């Protein structure tokens, strides 16, 4: 079953604009990760945020985590055409075996 739900399912913006994607989850987590998937490729890890962290930065990426609302957001600033991809959040839950549960993803299109 899907733990994370990304919102929106699809997002189309102009190059240079900022892109924000949201992820909501249901059960308590150890950490939350964001991955990128280019068309026809495997997933690439972007960033991991632990349950006791509220914000994390990596280059043009900013991730926030609100455990009280069970939600996370991924912000990509100054978007580029190369950022066109699907973005997935994945949660490492406290329940059961430690494994990642992926959401449905947000399909991001950057228009030149």
């Amino acid at each position, binding site marked *: 079953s899907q733990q994370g739900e990304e919102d929106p399912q699809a997002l189309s913006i102009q190059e240079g604009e900022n892109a924000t994607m949201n992820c909501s989850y249901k059960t308590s987590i150890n950490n939350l990760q964001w991955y990128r998937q280019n068309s026809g*490729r*495997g997933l690439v890890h972007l960033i991991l945020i632990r349950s006791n962290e509220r914000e994390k930065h990596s280059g043009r990426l900013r991730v926030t985590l609100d455990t009280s609302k069970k939600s996370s957001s991924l912000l990509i600033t100054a978007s580029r055409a190369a950022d066109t991809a699907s973005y*997935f959040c994945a949660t490492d839950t406290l329940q059961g*075996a430690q494994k990642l549960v*992926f959401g*449905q993803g947000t399909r991001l299109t950057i228009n030149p």
Partner: protein
Amino acid sequence: EAGVAQSPRYKIIEKRQSVAFWCNPISGHATLYWYQQILGQGPKLLIQFQNNGVVDDSQLPKDRFSAERLKGVDSTLKIQPAKLEDSAVYLCASSTTSHVKTQYFGPGTRLLVL
């Protein structure tokens, strides 16, 4: 550092046929995962190995899917017999330990069942 290798990249078979996928993880990675990704969805974990032992196979359809990781290095995933709904991308990933950290994914095998 070489990434996760998978083969074949594409496979087309007819329903009720069998198919096998191969994965070679990053050298030294003890944990290996197989995921199924249906078009438009996120990856779903099928099976997780720690060295050559199974950690989690709760979502593996065991009546038709099997996987092994002999010698704790490369792994094969088999489907026999295949159904139309098995059409998907099969992703292999590896990580350093069974404690969830960053997973490194291969390019995937795209399976089409006709």
